């Protein structure tokens, strides 16, 4: 188990990156604590696989360092890093039994056969694979295969971290939940550092203690799931997390109010002060969950025309339009909504303001 630290770590596939756009992974500093469960979340091509490959040693970064428990591992080959990895699809040694698959990493390291046996049985017990130990690995279901892949990492006592590269992609939906529970349970039991790469926000938010959100090679926020929801540091986090994502509106400042889509909206004095100090392109962001219906002319409200109301069981999703902008609001299922015009409160305590896509102050 290890504490993983990145120091000015960056990677560009081409030589001499001139601007930040040339990086597959923009230089950054980050610390992942020993025994934590971390998720790397972002769309395809955001650099999360690059970061994962740097951790596992399949890729040597073009700049900066990776440290495990303070030891510089940047140049260390994969086999000496004590990393385990579960891939997107099950990677097994087809001709071997489940037992041999689990024993393989230990036997390669010349561990005594008696210890191999004890360790494999111990891990098989945790993963509920004991009954299948004598079976050929290739005949098992996809979720059992992924458990074996995971088991090959767990059998090693010296393993520093286990990396998961979208491990639930090939698993049936009803097994996904079970397997994720299993992962959490193992995490509690063995206190391992787990790193989970995914583009599925539900997986990331339910699995991890801390989520690292990436886009275009940049780490835009690292934080607890609630923080990502309530206080996104970047418009991308607001947009990517949540379903539907945050509402964003470009704004101008006009005296003691802001203007969004030709409507004047009153904002809190402190927020206004922060906005006046910020430069760059300003945006107001509010989650659909925080938008509320209000009365005509209420502070912080805009007048919008209802476009659509979708009933989602426990809530309903309102889509409305004002001055060419769309606003989505998640409202209580019991709220009575008549079509036509509604006043929606966009500026309130939960509202976040962004300057050049970065959160302002607070």
């Amino acid at each position, binding site marked *: 188990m290890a504490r993983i630290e990145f120091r000015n770590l960056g990677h560009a596939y081409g030589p001499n990156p001139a601007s930040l756009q040339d990086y597959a992974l923009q230089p950054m500093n980050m610390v992942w604590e020993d025994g934590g469960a971390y998720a790397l979340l972002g769309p395809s091509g955001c650099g999360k696989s690059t970061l994962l490959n740097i951790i*596992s040693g399949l890729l040597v970064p073009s700049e900066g360092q990776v440290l495990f428990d303070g030891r510089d591992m940047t140049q260390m080959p994969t*086999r000496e890093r004590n990393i385990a*990895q579960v891939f997107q*699809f099950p*990677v097994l040694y087809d*001709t071997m*039994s489940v037992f*041999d698959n689990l024993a393989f990493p230990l036997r390669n390291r010349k561990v005594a056969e008696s210890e191999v046996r004890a360790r494999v049985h111990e891990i098989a017990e945790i993963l509920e694979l004991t009954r299948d130990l*004598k*079976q050929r690995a290739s005949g098992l279901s996809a979720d059992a295969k992924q458990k074996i892949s995971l088991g090959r990492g767990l059998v090693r006592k010296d393993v520093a971290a286990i990396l998961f590269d979208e491990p639930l992609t090939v698993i049936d939906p009803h097994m996904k939940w079970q397997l994720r529970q299993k992962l959490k349970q193992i995490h509690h039991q063995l206190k391992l550092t787990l790193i989970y790469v995914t583009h599925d926000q539900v997986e990331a938010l339910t699995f991890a203690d801390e989520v690292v959100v990436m886009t275009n090679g940049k780490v835009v926020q690292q934080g607890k799931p609630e923080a990502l929801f309530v206080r996104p540091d970047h418009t991308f986090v607001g947009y990517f997390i949540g379903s539907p994502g945050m509402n964003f509106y470009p704004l101008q400042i006009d005296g003691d109010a802001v203007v969004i889509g030709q409507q004047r909206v009153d904002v809190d004095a402190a927020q206004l002060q922060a906005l006046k100090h910020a430069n760059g392109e300003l945006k107001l962001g509010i989650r659909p969950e925080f938008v509320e219906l209000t009365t005509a002319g209420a502070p912080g409200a805009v007048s919008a025309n209802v476009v659509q109301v979708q009933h989602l069981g426990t809530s309903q999703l309102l889509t409305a339009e004002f001055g060419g902008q769309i606003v989505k609001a998640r409202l209580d299922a019991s709220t009575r909504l008549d079509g036509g015009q509604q006043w929606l409160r966009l500026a309130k305590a939960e509202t976040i303001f962004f300057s050049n896509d970065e959160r302002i102050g607070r």
Partner: protein
Amino acid sequence: MNKPYNNKAWFFILPVFLTVAFSAIIPLMTVVNYSVQDIISPEQSVFVGLEWFRAVMRDSELHSALLRQLIFSFCVLLVQIPLGIGLALSMPAQGWKSSAALVILAMPLLIPWNVVGTIWQIFGRADIGLGGYVLSRLGMDYNYASNSLDAWITVLVMDVWHWTPLVALLAFAGLRSIPDAYYQAAQIDGASRWAVFRFIQLPKMRGVLVIAVLLRFMDSFMIYTEPFVLTGGGPGNSTTFLSQYLTQKAVGQFDLGPAAAFSLIYFLIILLLSFILYNWMQSAGNGNQATGAPHE
């Protein structure tokens, strides 16, 4: 709903039926027909039952041709399969080097079989051929036309040169289909180069290797053109393989009955051996590893 019942459906299988009939059943039945008759002249023939089969089975020349054939095919597999795998493993995986290696490797496959025979006939000659000349300058008494061992080895080396590329191409295709994640997992698991070959590459290549073994077995078992051009079956009968012996019988002596019986036996031997090889290779991949099998 009232479904009409009629026999129109038969028309739909007619094309398949005709194709199979003309391509396989009719020629085969012609041979079966010849094999049970004594054809004295085109107008006159006598039904002789299994007489030709008995005669062929007792033919000692056939026995020795069969033995030669078995040894030859066995040697072909023994050399070409490992060599093909080795070539595939040492080839560059991608880029222009890979393409270049593939083209160079495929060259012998593009040469007509009788030309292959001619090339080696000249190549092996001590007076004008590069191979024969070098060997004789090295002090070896090499002459494929008079020494039967030399002739044998020359035919074998020629076949290896001609057909190993096919095995290599198949094995290469098999290797390329292995996803990178397997190699990454092996690195993470600390597997040695040998373990990667034994537990990832070889199992993943099994499908194509079964095809390679069957193709090489069947082809080598039917080898005709190259030794015919190179040695003409000699010296003596040392490189007379089954096909050539059959041709001598059927065309040379015009013994259609025995030749037909022989053809059928030949066909059945290939079928049987292919079947055995196939099943053996399938079970070698599926069985024997089940419970904590010893590890190298």
